[in-house]
């Protein structure tokens, strides 16, 4: 058995590896505890190299026992040396992992593939989540593949474009009056009442979060089993940054790599984690979420304090670009590298830009930035910031006039 327990991140109390997520001793969140001797004996770089072209090439590091994965092909996405963007920002060794090309067009496929596989392993009857969009699409697709009903809780008034995917895959989409935090509270209550349902980011959270560690494994594998100097990660709850950090630590544990990675976060202005890192204070929940970057707008981030701790421990920093900077970030990436990312990706690029300008990232550092989602899903939110089309009559002279400008 790879997974030996769930362990409280706060007090260390251990629990059997079931669908649990909160410690009964101190109410802290739980994380997976592995049998590292077992993993070290089983895992090898050669085995990974021959593995499937998805997150499941790293199955030896994932909290799944003997069950076939629900694999739509999440992960092992494009790893790009971003020469053009690097030049623009003044970086010689900038790399991107482009998760806008995942099966449902965001990094969520990594976590959901693991969580839905775990739901199957537990014999659960349904799956669910609270979502601002990307998670809804990913869960619905994986639930369809797993033959499980899906219940998706979204805030009332969410853009239709964000739930088309969920609806097309046949999920039950529940629009809840209020914000994401309200939808999330209700989903938590439903999870409490239905222990044989797998709410991927609630009662399956300890397993779910592990899926994002694959971003760290891919980073190292693509760099020929070297660690980058620095990474830049978008933050909502902070879970992604924590998972990538754990992924790097896992690789050190099995002697695949050595060294330290400086972990940097990017979060839209006004949100709690970046605010706490910048001020040096605690992560304090906020009620009003003014940013247009809805996929990162979480007022009460569950992993905020852990993300902040990792950023500080590794000598990183967090930046909090404005909405306008983030839109410029989307455009900059699109125009330099041909990648159309969602606004969260714009936050990452804008955050990276600030970190370079502040001198926190050195010109020659090997830097990896994580592009977590696809721009087509939130196209309407940036359309008014783009140049309009050039309108002419169907006459050659009119076109020639255009190019003579």
């Amino acid at each position, binding site marked *: 058995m790879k997974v030996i327990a769930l362990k409280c991140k706060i007090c260390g109390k251990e629990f059997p590896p079931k669908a649990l997520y*909160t410690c009964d001793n101190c109410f802290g969140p739980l994380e997976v505890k592995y049998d590292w001797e077992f993993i070290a004996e089983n895992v090898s770089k050669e085995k990974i190299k021959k593995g499937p072209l998805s997150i499941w090439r790293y199955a030896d590091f994932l909290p799944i026992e003997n069950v076939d994965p629900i694999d739509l092909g999440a992960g092992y996405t494009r790893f790009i040396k971003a020469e053009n963007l690097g030049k623009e920002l003044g970086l010689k060794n900038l790399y991107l992992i482009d998760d806008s090309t995942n099966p449902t067009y965001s990094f969520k496929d990594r*976590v959901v593939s693991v969580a839905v596989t775990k739901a199957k392993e537990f014999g659960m009857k349904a799956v669910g989540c609270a*979502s601002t969009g990307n998670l809804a699409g990913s869960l619905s697709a994986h639930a369809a593949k797993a033959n499980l009903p899906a219940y998706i809780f979204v805030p009332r008034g969410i853009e239709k474009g964000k739930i088309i995917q969920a609806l097309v895959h046949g999920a039950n989409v529940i629009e809840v009056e209020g914000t994401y935090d309200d939808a999330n509270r209700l989903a938590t209550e439903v999870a*409490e009442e239905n222990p044989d349902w797998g709410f991927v980011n609630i009662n399956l959270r300890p397993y779910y979060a592990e899926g994002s560690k694959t971003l760290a494994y891919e980073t190292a594998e693509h760099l020929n089993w070297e660690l980058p100097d620095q990474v830049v990660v978008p933050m909502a709850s902070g879970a992604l940054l924590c998972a990538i950090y754990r992924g790097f630590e896992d690789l050190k544990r099995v002697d695949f790599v050595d060294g330290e990675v400086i972990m940097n976060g990017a979060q839209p202005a006004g949100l709690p984690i970046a605010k706490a890192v910048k001020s040096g204070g605690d992560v304090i929940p906020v009620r009003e979420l003014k940013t247009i970057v809805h996929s990162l707008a979480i007022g009460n981030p569950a*992993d905020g304090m852990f993300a902040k701790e990792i950023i500080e421990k590794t000598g990183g920093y967090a930046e909090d670009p404005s909405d306008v900077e983030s839109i410029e970030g989307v455009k900059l990436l699109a125009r330099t590298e041909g990648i159309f990312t969602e606004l969260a990706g714009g936050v990452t690029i804008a955050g990276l830009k600030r970190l370079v300008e502040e001198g926190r990232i050195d010109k020659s550092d090997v830097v990896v930035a994580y592009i977590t989602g696809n721009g087509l899903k939130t196209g309407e939110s940036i359309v008014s910031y783009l140049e309009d089309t050039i309108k002419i009559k169907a006459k050659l002279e009119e076109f020639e006039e255009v190019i003579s400008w």
Partner: protein
Amino acid sequence: MVKVKFPTVFVQITKERKIEIEAKNVKELLDKLFERYDGLKERLIKDGELTPFINIFVNGEDIRYLKGLETELKDDDEIAFIPAISGG
């Protein structure tokens, strides 16, 4: 009487998920619960403050955005203790 709902993780201490109790505000409610359930106070209060891992809602609203412990309660109000898990 107000209606109080506990999460599964409380059940080891409270033995029950739903109760009704008299309380004028959240502070009084907590004092009564601490008196009634041995071990709850030590788990819920850390360094004199409520643990950040459990949120308290009155009729669906987080007490942080009401009046905190001073939030007044009236008959039939629903108070829910919910593990603080959000985002992904």
